């Protein structure tokens, strides 16, 4: 599958509040812990070899499960494969907690849920739809009952 690699690499170089050297272990049997610079940018987790400019890889943080494994280690499981996890070893309990928290909150779906919650509540409290002022009340992605609403289909192919 093609993807905009150069642009994604450029994204990985943006300043991030969550960037640190962690011990990282892949999900496969036989994978060992390696020191990596792990960096959270939008909903991607990039990981670099120390002092390299281009990331080794990028993990999309959607539909994944982040868990605390022990006081200083957290894991991320993708593809609903609970046993195949990426492991990350931190330097402290606090750091570990911050990473878990940040990764959960970085998910687009998590943010969307918050948005829908605020939109509903603001409307309930004030009678106004806060998205109207931005002209985006009709965008499918911000709909309150997104899962139930019928999306208007593009009919240009018909």
């Amino acid at each position, binding site marked *: 599958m093609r993807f905009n690699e150069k642009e994604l690499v450029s994204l990985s170089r943006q300043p991030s*509040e969550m960037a640190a050297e962690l011990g990282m272990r892949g999900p496969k049997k036989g994978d060992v812990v390696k020191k990596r610079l792990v960096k959270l940018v939008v909903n991607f987790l990039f990981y670099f070899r120390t002092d390299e400019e281009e990331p080794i890889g990028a993990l999309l943080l959607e539909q994944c499960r982040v868990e605390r494994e022990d006081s200083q280690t957290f894991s991320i499981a993708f593809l609903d494969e609970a046993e195949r996890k990426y492991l990350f070893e931190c330097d402290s309990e606090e750091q570990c907690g911050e990473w878990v928290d940040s990764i959960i909150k970085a998910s687009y779906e998590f943010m969307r849920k918050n948005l829908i919650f605020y939109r509903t509540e*603001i409307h309930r409290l004030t009678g106004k739809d806060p998205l109207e002022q931005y002209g985006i009340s009709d965008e499918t992605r911000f709909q309150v009952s997104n899962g139930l609403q019928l999306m208007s289909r593009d009919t240009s192919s018909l």
Partner: protein
Amino acid sequence: MKLHEKILTHYLSCTSPVDKEGYLYKKKERNATYQRRWFVLKANLLFYQERPADRHLLGVIVLERCAVRRAESDAQFAFSLVFGPGLKTYRFAAVDRQTQESWVKALLSASHCYLSLLVRDLGRQYEEAKQQQGSGESCSSVTALKPSTYSFLFTAQGPTTAAVVREGRSHSASTVLQAPSIPTKVVAKKSPKLWPRRNAYVTPLNGPAPLYGEWPLVGFDPLEDFRKLHDYYGQEVKKAREEWLRSRQAEEERSDEDLIDLG
């Protein structure tokens, strides 16, 4: 760099709904021809394949740090995703104006950065709304900053103080939201407390990418003038607010002094 594709395709096929899908023509970079492709937009990811029923995905475009532009130079109902100097420009064409507009609009609000700003803004509005619903006393001391002051600054016709406060913030937020591709510029103008506290383990790999100036945004920006107006007044308001808070302490000693000195 390895993009773990299975994670993306898994996300695409999972139960959360798609944000937009349909046929568009995509321009091939090499020979400048347009090919019809089926596009699926989900979160900040634009997937494409030959036909809707295909299981094989041709590609994905991550929609961060790009500008959406209407561009009719080489095709009708055309638009593009511009990533900036040294980076790609993806060109598309729709079959009619409605489809073009619909896609442009959807892509403008697709980025994670945009959503992040929007959530932040709505979070603030929510807190304000809750405060006003709850005890009136606590909010009045902060938000009731001399209605006359606000009338002077905004020259609005008799808005309530609370509405003006919200309006002011909405303007700043909406100008922010009108320029989703330039988040770093926005950070400089916002009050520090609105942004998350910096992590002690920040080790940025490189400095920020060079700002390539303002890209012309899609269509016209109706809030362009408001943006300048608000920035100017926003500083006055901030100054006024600080002085008011300071003078509140001084009030106990010298009750005759003016509460706000606008200099």
